[in-house]
C-alpha cells in the first residue's frame, strides 16, 4: 500500500434482497492509490457491494463512508464503469457524446457542454487510445473498444477512484490484458477498484484481492506465491481454496 489514507470504508455491511442474504458482515477498507480486485463467483454479491459503495443501494446494516462522507455525497469523486448490460448497444449515440456524459454534474445545468468539457472528453479518449473514433456511432464498436469508451467516460469525471464492474467479461483475453495494462497506468494517479469473476488475469496487476462470497476475505497479492499462483492461474476462481491458502486480516 502506497498510503494509509482510507478513502472507502465499509463496516459490518449486511444486505439482503427480501429474504435472500447477499452480503453478511462485510468490512473493507480501501486506501489511496490502491489497486484492489474484488473476486467471487456469480451471485456472490460483487455488484451489490459496488452499488453500496456508489450509494445506489443502501445496506440494511453497517456503515459506509467514502472520503469520510456518505456515498451519495462522494459520488462525483468516483468514476464508474458499468457492465455492458446496463444499456442498449444500439442506442443512437456517438463515442464523443458517450464520453461527455462523464462531465455531467460538473458542467453547467442548462444548454450544451462547455468547451472545457469537450477538451476533457478528448483527453480521456486519448488516454484509452481511441481519440480517432470520437465521431463513430457506439454501435459500430467492438467489445474491447466499447469497454475503453466506458473507461474514458469514467475518466472524464476526473475521478479520484475508478470503479469497474467486470471490465473484461465480454472481451477476449488479448484485449483483456490491454485493459488491465491501461488500469495499471491509471493506478499511478488513481485508486482503482475492479470486480471480476476471474482471478487469473487480475492477480498479476492488483495490489490486494478481496474474495467475496457473501462474506469477504482480503489478501495481499504478495501472500499468494508459488504453488498458489499456479493454482490461481490454472483454475477459475471457484477452485481457489480459501481455507488452505489465505491469511485473513
Amino acid at each position, binding site marked *: 500500500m502506497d498510503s494509509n489514507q482510507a478513502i472507502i470504508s465499509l463496516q459490518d455491511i449486511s444486505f439482503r434482497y427480501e429474504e435472500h442474504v447477499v452480503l453478511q458482515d462485510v468490512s473493507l477498507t480501501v486506501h489511496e492509490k490502491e489497486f484492489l480486485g474484488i473476486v467471487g463467483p456469480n451471485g456472490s454479491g460483487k455488484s451489490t457491494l459496488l452499488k453500496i459503495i*456508489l450509494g*445506489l443501494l443502501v445496506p440494511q446494516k453497517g456503515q459506509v463512508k467514502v472520503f469520510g462522507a456518505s456515498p451519495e455525497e462522494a*459520488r*462525483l469523486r*468516483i468514476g*464508474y464503469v*458499468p457492465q455492458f448490460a*446496463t*444499456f*442498449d448497444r444500439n*442506442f*443512437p*449515440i*456517438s463515442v464523443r*457524446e*458517450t464520453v*461527455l*456524459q*462523464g462531465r*455531467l*454534474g460538473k*458542467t453547467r445545468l*442548462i*444548454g*450544451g*457542454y462547455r468547451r472545457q468539457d469537450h477538451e476533457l472528453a478528448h483527453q480521456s479518449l486519448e488516454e484509452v487510445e481511441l481519440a480517432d473514433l470520437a465521431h463513430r*456511432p*457506439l*454501435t*459500430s464498436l*467492438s467489445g*474491447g*473498444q466499447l469497454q475503453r469508451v466506458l473507461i474514458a*467516460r469514467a475518466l472524464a*469525471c476526473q475521478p479520484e477512484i475508478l470503479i469497474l464492474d467486470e471490465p473484461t467479461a465480454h472481451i477476449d483475453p488479448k*484485449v483483456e490484458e490491454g485493459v488491465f495494462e491501461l488500469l495499471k497506468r491509471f493506478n499511478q494517479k488513481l485508486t482503482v477498484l475492479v470486480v471480476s469473476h476471474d482471478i487469473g488475469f487480475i492477480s498479476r496487476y492488483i495490489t490486494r484481492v478481496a474474495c467475496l462470497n457473501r462474506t469477504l476475505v482480503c489478501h495481499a497479492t504478495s501472500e499468494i506465491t508459488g504453488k498458489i499462483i499456479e493454482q490461481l492461474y490454472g483454475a477459475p476462481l471457484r477452485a481457489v481454496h480459501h481455507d488452505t491458502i489465505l491469511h485473513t486480516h
Partner: protein
Amino acid sequence: MNTFLEALVSQPFMQNALLGGLLASVACGVAGTYVVVRRIGYIAGGIAHAVLGGMGLAYFLGRSPFIGAIIAALVAALIIGWVSMRWKKQEDTTISALWAIGMAVGVLLIARTPGYNVDLMSYLFGNILMIPKSQLTLIFWLDVGIVLLVLLFFKQLLAVSFDEEFAALRQVPVNFFSMLLLCLVALTVVILIQVVGLILVIALLALPAAIAGQYVHSLSRMMLFATLLGFFFTTGGLAVSYQYDLPSGATTVLLTGLAYLTSSIGVCLWRRWQVRRATHSCSIPETRAE
C-alpha cells in the same frame, strides 16, 4: 394532384390542415425519437387513450376538449411515471387500466352530454380538415415549449435515456427528467390526436423516428430526420385523402406504415447483401476490427 394544390391555394381549411400537419411533425419528430429509443410506445399508447376521458369531461362541462386533453394527458403521464418509479412491476397494469378507464369515462361522458352529440369518430380517428385556427396557435406554442425544453436539457435527457444508472451517479435528477420526458410525450400525443386521432396516434409518434433510426446514429439527427418524414407523411396523407376522398387520419397512418415497412425490408436486404459481398470478396469471414 392538381385538385389538391388548387384546394390548397383556394381553401383556408386546407391551408390550416397542412399547417397543422407540419406543426404536429415537429413535436412528433422530437418526442417520437425519445419514444423509440426509450421503448415507451406502450406508455404513449396508454396516455393517448386516457386522453379521451379528459376530452369527454371537458365536453360534458362545456369546456374546450383540447384543454381537457392536455390536462388528462399530463395527469396520465404523471401517474404512469410515478407508478413506474415506485412499483416498477405494476407499470404495465397501470397503463392498461388508464388506457381502458380513460376510454370508458370519455365514451360515457360524451354519451351523457345533452344536446347535439359530438362526432366521437373525429376524436378517435382525427379530422385534420376541421382544425380551427385557434388550435393551430396552441399547437405552435406547444411545439415551442417542447423544442425549448429539449434544447435546454438535451444532455440530461440523452444521459437519462441512454444509461439511467450512470446519470444518477453524475447527480442528474433522473426521476425528474424521466417525468419531464413523459410530459413532453403526453403533450405531443395531444397534438398528434388532432391530426390522426387517438387510436392511430402511436403510429405517427413512433414510426417516423423508427425509420430515421435506421439511417442515422445520433439523437439530434434522428429528431431532424423524423420531423422531415413527419412533414412528408402528413402532407402526403392529406393530399392522397383529398384526392381520393378518404379519411385523412387513416390515410396518413397507412402511408407512414408503408414507408416503415418498405424501409425496414430495404435496410434488411441491404445488410444481407453487404454481408454476402464481404464473404465473397475474401475467404476469411469478416470480423470486427479491434
